[in-house]
């Protein structure tokens, strides 16, 4: 681990100590897992509560990962149902869907923090997130949520390097944003569509693929495989098609360029123009 990263980790630990005690918005992914570990080390397990919001947008595989990590690290973990699917702005799924989701999550966590005597709410946003399109960050600001990794200047590569050094199993875990991120902007979010995506991705995982997305475009599934896995995908195209159809899709497409982070964000200007005619 570089001296720069080491210094930044010390800075993140300092931020957490300023917080005194923390509720963590905890998905079980690589970022929030590192924050949970740093918080435990900086504050002691008794001053840390990891909270996972549960809805149809959170796949079971992620729920299991969150539970396992918290148990392994000796961190108190709470799961609670969230109601973002009852928010029209979230269901509409335009460019600020994440804002509406986090506007549901952060007040809920703030209330838990107040009730249980924790001083601060923190998230796992890293320095790279600040350069990406992240409307959810606006909700974090509105609710005074701290972002120790981002504030300390730790980017995704730094998160992975630090996690590896600390022996966290999450260090090389694929990025795992919520299932709603698979729905093309303008395609309304529903439990049924989220379930189709979850089942389809479970099917691809069962076939041995590791990093991929099943994008829901309303009338079809567009499968993005990580470029190193694309050749294998071509060879197993029939199995992919079968798995995705079994999940509930009538039409399956294989993206020829493969998985790229935030690919659906490429469509935001088009959605603005077409908002009146999408499903």
């Amino acid at each position, binding site marked *: 681990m570089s001296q720069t990263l080491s210094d930044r980790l010390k800075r993140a630990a300092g931020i957490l100590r300023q917080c005194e005690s923390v509720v963590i918005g905890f998905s079980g992914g690589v970022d929030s897992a590192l924050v949970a570990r740093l918080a435990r080390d900086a504050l002691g397990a008794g001053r840390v509560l990891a909270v996972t919001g549960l809805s149809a947008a959170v796949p079971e595989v992620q729920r299991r990962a969150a539970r396992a990590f918290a148990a392994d690290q000796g961190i108190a973990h709470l799961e609670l149902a969230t109601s973002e699917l009852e928010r029209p702005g979230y269901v509409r799924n335009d460019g600020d869907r994440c804002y509406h989701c986090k506007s549901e999550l952060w007040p809920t966590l703030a209330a838990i923090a107040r009730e249980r005597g924790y001083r601060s709410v923190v998230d796992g946003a890293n320095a790279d997130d600040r350069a990406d399109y992240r409307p959810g960050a606006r909700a974090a600001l509105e609710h005074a949520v701290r972002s120790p990794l981002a504030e300390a200047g730790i980017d995704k590569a730094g998160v992975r390097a630090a996690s590896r050094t600390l022996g966290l199993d999450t260090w090389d875990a694929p990025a795992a944003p919520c299932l709603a991120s698979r729905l093309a902007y303008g395609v309304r979010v529903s439990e049924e569509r989220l379930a189709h995506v979850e089942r389809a991705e479970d099917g691809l995982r069962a076939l041995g693929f590791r990093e991929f997305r099943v994008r829901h475009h*309303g009338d079809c599934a*567009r499968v993005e495989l990580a470029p190193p896995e*694309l050749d294998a995908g071509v060879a197993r195209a029939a199995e992919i098609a079968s798995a995705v159809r079994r999940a509930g899709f009538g039409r399956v497409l294989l993206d*020829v*360029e493969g998985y790229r982070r935030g690919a659906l964000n490429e469509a935001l200007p088009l959605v603005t123009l077409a908002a009146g005619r999408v499903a």
Partner: protein
Amino acid sequence: MTPGDGRIERALALLRSHGASIRGATAAGAARDVLAVHADASQVARVRSIAPRLRELGFRYVAVELGGDGQGDG
């Protein structure tokens, strides 16, 4: 083929001029921003080689249809 969509005719011409063995193409997705090429999966690499030029025709994504008739409802 999507009737009246000139992007599709141009995409088909471009694909065939590069030797791709294809059966057709449609504009897929609620926003009609996915070019769905009807071809065997073996054509993926060839389609990928010209994907940037296909996107320049007005598509955000370029994909190969995996079986079926391309008329499903998601």
